[in-house]
């Protein structure tokens, strides 16, 4: 959710952290995939539990449609599963999985020649069902506005911003996912941030301290 992108992740309830109910440490994903590649079939469930909530949120933001996000998530996980045979020991799983998800989304989009529908996403589709406090309501309204601004940006800027601010990737990891340089990712994210600041004014001033 964009609220979290604006630096208030800690304000959200812990129950919003996915079906698995807890956050997997990054290294845990990598270790689980390593075990899966080595032949431990049961480790795939751990890989799924670690990746699915983040990937689903990302895909939901991209597509604005739950059924499509589910289909893309399923395909992404199947690609991860099929790549077991050539998994590189010690490789990071998350940037790779996000790159697959992004490619599948763009591929489908290109075939349809249709623009993403970020503004169609219901804010509560991405968060918990707990009763919202006033700040949360305000934050959700802000998130919808952020969604609209992001939807109007070029895909490269939107992707850089989302990967860093919303998915929690480092600039270097986002550069890997996008297949570009760290400097280019910084520039794209900065431009997206500037566009948000122009569009939303003071509402995004909290971002100032967290620019890449």
């Amino acid at each position: 959710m964009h609220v979290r992108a604006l630096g208030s992740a800690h304000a959200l309830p812990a129950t919003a952290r996915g079906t698995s109910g807890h956050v997997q440490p990054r290294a845990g994903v990598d270790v689980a995939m390593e075990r899966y590649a080595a032949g431990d079939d049961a480790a795939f469930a751990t890989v799924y539990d670690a990746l699915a909530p983040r990937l689903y949120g990302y895909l939901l933001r991209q597509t604005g449609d739950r059924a499509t996000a589910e289909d893309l998530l399923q395909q992404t996980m199947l690609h991860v599963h099929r790549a077991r045979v050539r998994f590189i020991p010690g490789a990071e799983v998350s940037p790779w999985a996000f790159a697959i998800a992004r490619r599948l989304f763009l591929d489908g989009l290109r075939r349809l020649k249709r623009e993403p529908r970020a503004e169609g996403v219901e804010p509560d589709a991405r968060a918990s069902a707990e009763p919202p406090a006033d700040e949360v309501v305000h934050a959700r309204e802000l998130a919808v506005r952020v969604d609209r601004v992001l939807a109007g940006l070029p895909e490269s800027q939107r992707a850089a911003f989302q990967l860093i601010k919303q998915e929690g990737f480092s600039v270097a990891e986002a550069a890997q996912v996008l297949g570009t340089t760290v400097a280019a990712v910084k520039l794209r994210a900065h431009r997206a941030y500037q566009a948000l600041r122009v569009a939303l004014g003071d509402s995004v001033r909290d971002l100032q301290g967290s620019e890449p």
Partner: protein
Amino acid sequence: MSTPPPMAVAPADLRSRVLDSVARTPAPARRVGSRRRFLIIARGIAVAGLVGVAALVHGPEARGRPLAYVAELEALWVALAVVATWAGVGRGRSMLGRPASWKVAVAALTPVALLLAWLPVALAWPATLHDHSGLRSHVVCVLMTFAFAAGPLVAFARLRRASDPVSPRLTGAALGAAAGAWGAVAHAVICGYTSPVHIVLGHVLPVVFLAAVGVAVGDRVVALRAESVSRAIRC
């Protein structure tokens, strides 16, 4: 990580659906893949070897170069082909492969490096700078280099099939250049023409062409594709 990763509520039944799909489509573990990769590379080399045998029997006859010239040129070009293969085909330590700058460098610099490696060898044997090659011999060598590179290119493309979600065209260009380097290595054994014009047009230019062919190979073979995504989005 700059911020904690956000989470979303994925449908409860999606997990079981994905795990069921995975169970229905078994994928081999990594140790099986190692054997497969070895077989793919062996077949690629075998194809190049067969083309070489055919070329030795029916190929161009203009040989007569100093043996040391051939040995030095082959040693340098083999070293370059190994480096191009390592940098262009290998993925390094990331599942996303090497950075785009590496791939561009492999595609662009491999032909240049082959030419630069040939230069000191040619200068050491100045007599080799002159020959009677013409357009026909240039064209024959371009085609022969393509023929020698076909096996490695197919092998490299199979190794990287549906594996690159980020920059498959650049990966393909790097694969093409690496395969072209092996084609140049193989063809240099049997081609007796040694003039600068012939080396550039007959041996180095095909590597550039193969890098361009690799772009198409990358787009069609190396790229990771959606299967039912567009159908799903449409629904």
